[in-house]
């Protein structure tokens, strides 16, 4: 049951968006997030949303799947909306009852914020939807590499992410196994209130942690015996390569971002 969880939310497709270099995609996302925060009209958001839709269509991932990614933040969005509607004051009073009142400014800011959050999440989720975790870690390593001079261990960080990704399925499998073993000895993971259920996880977590540490020890030994000595002097099987359309995409985005923020 635990095995079926997909890591990250990468959906493999053969599209231009997928083929873009991971570094370019990270840069584009950053530029557009900044641009998004400079927008102060609904027209701007409309324009932005249209652009996101074009990217989704180009990525060949179904709109439904992309929208599904918004589900977890729905509560946050509704919360933001209500806070603004009830607490931001100013403009006409639309409705009031004793000390509670809704004013036009509040409604406006509420919907404004919600549009911003929706577009932000939609757009950033496109990055993880169209970029495999491995490319993503490579891209992050590359982008962080200028910071190596200041002592940021960029390649080690990316190695850590790679290993974490590699071991997620292994540890899930192990958790499943331990759970079954404990259930066979009468452990109960399903009934009781929240606190009881949280407590019942202890016999699962303790062995899982111990075995994770043991694995880490073994892995360190195996890596050392295969000549791993940090990022210095390492080469790669998959080099990231900029191609001409990566630059075209970047230039288009910069023009768009500048246009949107000065509009």
């Amino acid at each position, binding site marked *: 049951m635990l095995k079926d969880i997909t890591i990250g939310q990468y959906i493999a497709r053969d599209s231009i968006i997928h083929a873009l270099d991971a570094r370019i995609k990270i840069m584009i996302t950053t530029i557009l997030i900044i641009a998004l925060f400079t927008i102060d009209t609904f027209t701007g958001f409309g324009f932005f949303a249209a652009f996101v839709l074009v990217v989704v269509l180009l990525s060949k991932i179904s709109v439904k799947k992309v929208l599904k990614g918004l589900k977890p933040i729905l509560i946050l969005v509704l919360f933001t909306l209500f806070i603004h509607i009830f607490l931001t004051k100013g403009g006409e009073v639309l409705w009031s009852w004793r000390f509670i009142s809704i004013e036009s400014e509040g409604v406006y800011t509420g919907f404004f914020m919600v549009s911003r959050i929706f577009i932000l999440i939609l757009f950033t989720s496109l990055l993880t939807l169209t970029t495999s975790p491995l490319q993503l870690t490579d891209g992050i390593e590359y982008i962080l590499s200028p910071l190596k001079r200041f002592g940021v261990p960029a390649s080690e960080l990316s190695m850590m992410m790679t290993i974490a990704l590699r071991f997620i399925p292994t540890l899930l499998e192990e958790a499943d196994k331990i759970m079954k073993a404990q259930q066979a000895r009468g452990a109960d993971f399903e009934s009781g209130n929240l606190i009881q259920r949280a407590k019942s996880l202890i016999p699962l977590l303790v062995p899982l942690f111990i075995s994770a540490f043991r694995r880490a020890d073994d*892995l360190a*030994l195996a*890596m050392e015996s295969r*000549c*791993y000595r940090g990022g210095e002097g390492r080469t*790669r099987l998959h080099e990231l390569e900029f191609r001409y359309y990566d630059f075209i995409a970047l230039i288009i985005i910069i023009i768009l971002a500048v246009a949107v923020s000065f509009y």
Partner: protein
Amino acid sequence: MSLIEISGVDFLYENDNSDRPALQNIDLQIEAGDFAVIIGSNGSGKSTLAKLLNVLLTPSKGEIFVAGLNTNNPDNTWKIRQRVGMVFQNPDNQLVASMVEDDVAFGPENLGIPTQEIRKRVDKALEMVGMAGFQKFAPHKLSGGQKQRVAIAGVIAMEPDCIVLDEPTAMLDPQGRKEVMETVQYLNKEKGITVVHITHFMEEAVNADQVIVMNQGQILHKGSPKSIFRLVEQLKDVNLDIPVAVEVAEYLRQENIDIPDILSIDELVDALC
């Protein structure tokens, strides 16, 4: 000079409360191209010996030379690790990447080999262990025997002179064990790679050039498989399982039936029928 020369080696783990060193007075030579099998029960020091060959540990006393390089000299560490590849017991805990080809490429990447050359080596190594076509697979989708063969490929891609396998079959089912042993034997016989195979399954010593029996940190016997298996009683004393055919032959010999030295079921069948 032999590929691996061990002379007068003792090893004592730090923070170890026991008085007995993990290894005591080990003398051993392994020739290039040999298939050497080290057998011993738990705690006999065989895994410690394996780690010494790869400079994961250095001897407390004595010297080890690998291809003429002294393991006590820290300057030699990485050169030796490139020449002596290690495969460990747990197939899950030695694969680094979430794709087979990335994992096999890990060693060559660490050595700083150019990208095109890595690609060639990865494909060649996977073909040698019979895992060609699995390049894009995730390790957790493979069987134990397949994972272990990927681990072997990862070592071969570094083009070592020698592979040390530390109980590579201990956690596998019989099918996986067979796959791994066939791969190892192929690499030794066809590709001329020296193999040091550490195991507690005695059957796996049958095809060896040299068998070393370890007990309590010392070498009990070394010699050809036939010479070792003749010591049935002594091997039983140190808690080793003797292959059934060897044991049957020994009982027949005790009953004064004239029977040659037997290593496998097939030989026993030939001798009796």
